């Protein structure tokens, strides 16, 4: 589905100079995988913190031939995703889809889709907090120096302390990774489940933090290693015996939510990637 763009705006809302500036930052980010590149985060008709970083990247790279998918928490129909999608289609007129395999640009927050991404696709992530060193070094200037010197001792001590205090690497999301064996990078709000998908991927991953005015990237076929110890390795979320209540999948990232009914309601576990789940259900119904 597509619509004609609103003639009041330039194609993709931003003016051409603004898009060029963001594309230049993107090139730099791709050239130095994992390195935080500053950019002049523009004002948008969406508040900072609602995905403006990812939105500006998408608006800068999108062409009329692209097919767009926007997800929030794995869902195409959540408020944030719907609003962002509407803004992009109204100003560009590009086709949209909910099917991961059909999209050329996927803008997302929290998740990488379950279906494997291809080389002709770009995943754009909305980032709330860009710098992983903020946990150990609140001073931004000093953190920048630490990045330039690859001085990640403090971050490693943080991991060490995590094992000492909790007996394990207790980090739910924003798991820190080393990119290209050089830069420490935050994996933003994606769960640990999705972290291995960044390693040696076919797809270009672009990260935008609108409020923090930073862009960074993981180009295809880049080594992405989570911080871990040999005797306390990185682990994805594992819930033995759990499966999706809708499609029955055991191999996907699951979320639980409350479903109300006559008896008062119950907790239900379903796939976080709603479009993939729906696709599986449709396939199962077709074969029956």
């Amino acid at each position, binding site marked *: 589905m597509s619509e004609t763009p609103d003639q009041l705006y330039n194609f993709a809302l931003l003016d051409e100079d603004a898009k060029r500036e963001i594309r230049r930052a993107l090139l730099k980010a791709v050239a130095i995988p994992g390195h935080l590149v500053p950019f002049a985060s523009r004002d948008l008709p969406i508040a900072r913190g609602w995905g403006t970083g990812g939105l500006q990247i998408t608006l800068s790279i999108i062409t009329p031939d692209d097919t767009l998918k926007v997800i929030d928490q794995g869902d195409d129909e959540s408020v944030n995703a719907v609003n962002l999608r509407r803004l992009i289609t109204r100003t560009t007129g590009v086709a949209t889809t909910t099917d991961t395999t059909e999209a050329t640009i996927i803008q997302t927050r929290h998740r990488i889709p379950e279906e494997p991404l291809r080389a002709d696709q770009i995943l754009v992530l909305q980032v709330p907090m860009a710098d992983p060193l903020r946990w150990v070094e609140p001073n931004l200037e000093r953190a920048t*120096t630490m990045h330039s010197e690859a001085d990640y001792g403090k971050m490693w001590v943080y991991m060490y*302390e995590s094992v000492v205090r909790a007996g394990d690497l207790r980090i739910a999301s924003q798991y820190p990774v080393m990119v290209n064996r050089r830069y420490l990078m935050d994996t933003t709000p994606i769960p640990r489940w999705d972290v291995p998908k960044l390693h040696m991927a076919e797809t270009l991953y672009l990260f935008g933090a609108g409020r923090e005015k930073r862009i960074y990237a993981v180009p295809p076929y880049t080594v992405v290693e989570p911080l871990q*110890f040999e005797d306390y390795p990185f682990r994805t979320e594992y819930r033995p015996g759990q499966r999706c209540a809708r499609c029955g999948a055991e191999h996907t990232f699951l979320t639980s939510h409350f479903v109300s009914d006559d008896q008062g309601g119950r907790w239900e576990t379903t796939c976080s990637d709603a479009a993939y789940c729906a696709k599986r259900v449709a396939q199962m119904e077709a074969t029956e």
Partner: protein
Amino acid sequence: MIGDDWILRVEQLSKHFGPTCPDCHRLTGPDAGRSRCPRCGTVWACVEANLQLSAGEVLGIVGESGSGKSTLLQMIYLALPPDSGHIWYRDNGGPPRDLTTLDRYEARLFRNTQLGIVYQRPELGLNMRFSVGGNVAEKLLLAEWRHFGRIRARTAELMIKTELPPERIDDEPPTFSGGMLQRVQIAKALASRPALLLLDEITSGLDVSVQARVLDLLRRIQWEDRITMLLVSHDLGVVRQLARRTIVMKNGHIVEAGLTDQILEDPQHPYTQLLVSSAL
């Protein structure tokens, strides 16, 4: 005086802070009795310092506050870029490398693997929010130790070596006494088996009996590991206990250098004479 087995050689190392003026040279230095130029306000923290360290040697640097000892030490630690001069480093008789030409990344790598530093104030050398074990482990982690169990074992070993109770490995630094914190800093500095240990006024904040214990510890470590040390202090008594050779700094200049005993018994420079007569 010195053999061919040097590991560190500092040549004409200088550092100033300020705009400089044509009269700086005349108005500063030990003869003028000041390091800040009264005309332009430039501080000549360290002027054309030369020194050489042999492997396994302890060299003392004495001088009053503001004489440039710490500036010199910070430059050798590669934390402060010098204006001019060279810092030559030679590893096991290999070819000399000029450390002033290293970029930030290389300097950090060199600092983490070859150098250890202990500060007067423990909060400069330690992160007070991490546990003592974490602080010591930082150096191991930077040296790519990735096995938690082995890191713990090595940390405990270092704590025993520095006379710290290993059962307190997970306690936080603020719960330790001043002398213990200095030993934690020493344990951290020794973790990566550095070639050179830099000690910046390490006993200045401690009472006399604790001071003696820390000095004993350093002497024992020096004896056991043959580690090369550069010891900065304003206290001749401390330097005398550890260092065979000593250099005396005043107003950014090295005014005297030689064997510690010789300097103590027969000081040549008027300032050293004053220092010796007032200290002992």
